[in-house]
């Protein structure tokens, strides 16, 4: 496994490194505007967008409130189509189930579509240890597989790679297919990937894909892609395995239509991605192609706990990536700094919940609470509030460093006593105002080195807002 995925502790160090990485900064800058602008024009063209958000939230809330019912209904309908549903409480369970299916199919090569759940459980490690070759077939996932890195964006996993880096990766790894020259431009890169991965689709014994949604009514999974790689992984190999979180289930096809209108627009600004395909079971009698076996592995991994606590709203997430694209922190440091497969605001919430609040201490704190993520989230997940709740949990569990805890306690003591607070801030304002009168700012302050190292601290004007307000009232203005 690569360095980045190992630890969620070294956030500050990784962020500093990311900020100084010229290639990464260039790649992030190019991505930023595109995602944001495309999303905005797609949504401006659809006056019903807000109503769709309401409807989607209502459907998700309805489904989550009866999650056991809809999962069992889904399971029955998958069985009626001739498929099998498996249940995995933990990542180890999921990996064991997938490996068992692969082994009984005698699998040597797996063609894999993009699946965040498989990233979440490190399925690639399990497959490798079992001696089963894996080809990621989404171009972005394939690029980071060659680079041996985790995804840095949930929908654009190789967003951090420049074209030159991709050319080099292909050159280094494709010699074994007898490809000599360098694919320099975009067209040549895409054509070379098409050629190499096509063989994987045709030779693979097992195809593993994710699911954007599971539909209880029909026992289907749907995958939404632009490349068509997920579809080739689903319909060519003789065994198809779908990996999905338990929160992915929705009741009916009419419900699905609501989500599809939100997903593409929020993710990439598309009305519809090129391919939205529903798969319901293995090949039927008389079918000319299709897998002989169809399996769905449902993963819990902390989700049922979230269902019952104050983080339930996070289960509404449809993994569109809009919160990443609109986050000033993500846009500055990219996904790898977050230390796990989920990044940006949704990752800062999910990582501590799944990996433990001690393992990802910095993530909920690396947020300015500017609220853009909540504004653009199609599911209106209150991400800033969830991050605040995580900070509170950290404080309660005493994971917050002692100095910070002391300052917070001191501030909360003062803030709960308005007269004392005014006295204190008034005095501080007067003293700092007098000291900083000449320059109007401080380039150094005791206890505030973290602030002044990067920028100056503005000097107060002297009087506080409250005292100015009182004075203005007295003067009758």
């Amino acid at each position, binding site marked *: 496994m690569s360095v980045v995925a190992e630890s969620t502790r070294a956030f500050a160090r990784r962020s500093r490194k990311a900020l100084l990485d010229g290639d990464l900064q260039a790649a992030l800058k190019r991505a930023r505007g595109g995602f944001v602008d495309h999303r905005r024009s797609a949504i401006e063209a659809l006056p019903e967008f807000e109503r769709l958000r309401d409807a989607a939230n209502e459907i998700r809330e309805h489904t989550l409130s009866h999650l056991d*019912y809809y999962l069992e209904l889904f399971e029955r309908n998958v069985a009626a189509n001739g498929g099998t549903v498996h*249940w995995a409480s933990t990542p180890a369970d999921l990996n064991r189930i997938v490996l068992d299916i692969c082994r009984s199919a005698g699998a040597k090569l797996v063609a894999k579509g993009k699946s965040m759940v498989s990233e979440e459980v490190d399925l690639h490690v399990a497959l490798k240890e079992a001696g089963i070759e894996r080809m990621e077939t989404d171009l*972005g996932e394939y690029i980071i597989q060659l680079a041996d890195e985790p995804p840095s964006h949930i929908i654009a996993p190789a967003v951090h790679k420049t074209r030159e880096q991709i050319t080099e990766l292909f050159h280094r790894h494709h010699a074994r297919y007898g490809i000599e020259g360098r694919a320099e431009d975009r067209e040549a890169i895409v054509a070379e990937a098409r050629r190499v991965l096509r063989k994987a689709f045709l030779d693979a014994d097992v195809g593993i894909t994710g699911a954007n949604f599971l539909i209880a009514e029909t026992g289907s999974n749907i995958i939404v892609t632009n490349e068509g790689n997920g579809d080739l992984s689903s*319909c060519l190999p003789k065994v198809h395995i779908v990996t999905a979180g338990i929160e992915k289930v929705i009741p009916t096809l009419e419900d699905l239509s609501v989500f599809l209108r939100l997903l593409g627009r929020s993710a990439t600004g598309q009305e519809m991605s090129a391919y939205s395909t529903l798969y*319901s079971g293995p090949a039927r009698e008389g079918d*000319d192609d299709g897998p002989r076996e169809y399996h769905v592995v449902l993963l819990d991994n902390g989700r049922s706990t979230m269902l019952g606590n104050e983080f339930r709203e996070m289960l509404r997430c449809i993994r569109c990536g809009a919160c990443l694209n609109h986050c000033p922190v993500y846009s500055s440091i990219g996904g790898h700094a977050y230390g796990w497969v989920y990044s940006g605001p949704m990752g800062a919430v999910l990582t501590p919940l799944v990996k433990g609040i001690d393992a990802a201490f910095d993530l909920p704190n690396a947020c300015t609470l500017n609220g853009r993520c909540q504004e653009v989230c199609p599911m209106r997940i209150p991400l800033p509030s969830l991050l605040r709740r995580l900070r509170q949990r950290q404080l309660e569990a005493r994971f917050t460093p002692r100095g910070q805890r002391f300052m917070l306690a001191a501030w909360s003591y003062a803030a709960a006593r308005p007269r004392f607070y005014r006295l204190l801030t008034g005095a501080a304002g007067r003293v700092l105002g007098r000291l900083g009168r000449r320059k109007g700012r401080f380039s150094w302050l005791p206890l505030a080195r973290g602030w002044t190292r990067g920028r100056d601290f503005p000097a107060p004007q002297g009087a506080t807002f409250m005292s100015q307000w009182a004075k203005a009232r007295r003067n009758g203005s």
Partner: protein
Amino acid sequence: MSRERILADIRRALRRREALDPNVVRSLSARDAAVTPHVLPAYDEDLVARLVRKHEALHGSAVRVANAGGIVNAVIEYLRAHDLPERFVSAALAPLTELPWGDGVACEFRPARGDDRLAVSVADAAIAETGTLVLVSAPGAPMSHNYLPEHHVVVVESARVVKWQEDVWPLLRQRPDFPPRGIAMISGPSKTADVEQTIEYGAHGPRNVHLVVVES
């Protein structure tokens, strides 16, 4: 067993000890059986005209023909325009099975292979709202035709063009094989933006999707 554990954990999270009581189950089934569309984006445009406009905006090409006989010309013109051999795979569905292809044109009714250049399919429906073609898998209509060949010609009868995605679901529910194994909703050719966030067509699937609308 993970299954029982997960279901028990879910019920505990929902503050319920057992599965739902029959009255609640009845109300859930009633909700799902009602299958009413939620929010339909308003628009007022001729359905076929919009389908073609949206499909072309997605980098697809399109032609309208007067009757099923026009399909032959449309396909042959496409093959010639793209410098393709006069050999392709086709769905074994009406009206494709009854077309007079003429000498020298090899129309093969079989699943696609890795080196097939073109497939001809019949759409079960098309959604004017988004320019989306709906292709359902069935004997004679293999899914591989949609994704393997470099070029995809999709025939749709104008009467099968519907206004919204939600109009497709009731049509599918009438089929005896519902739910069909594969329901492909195709909106333009295969593409990727994984290199420099810039779109390239023909990632893994077809570089072009050519729509042939047959007036009916």
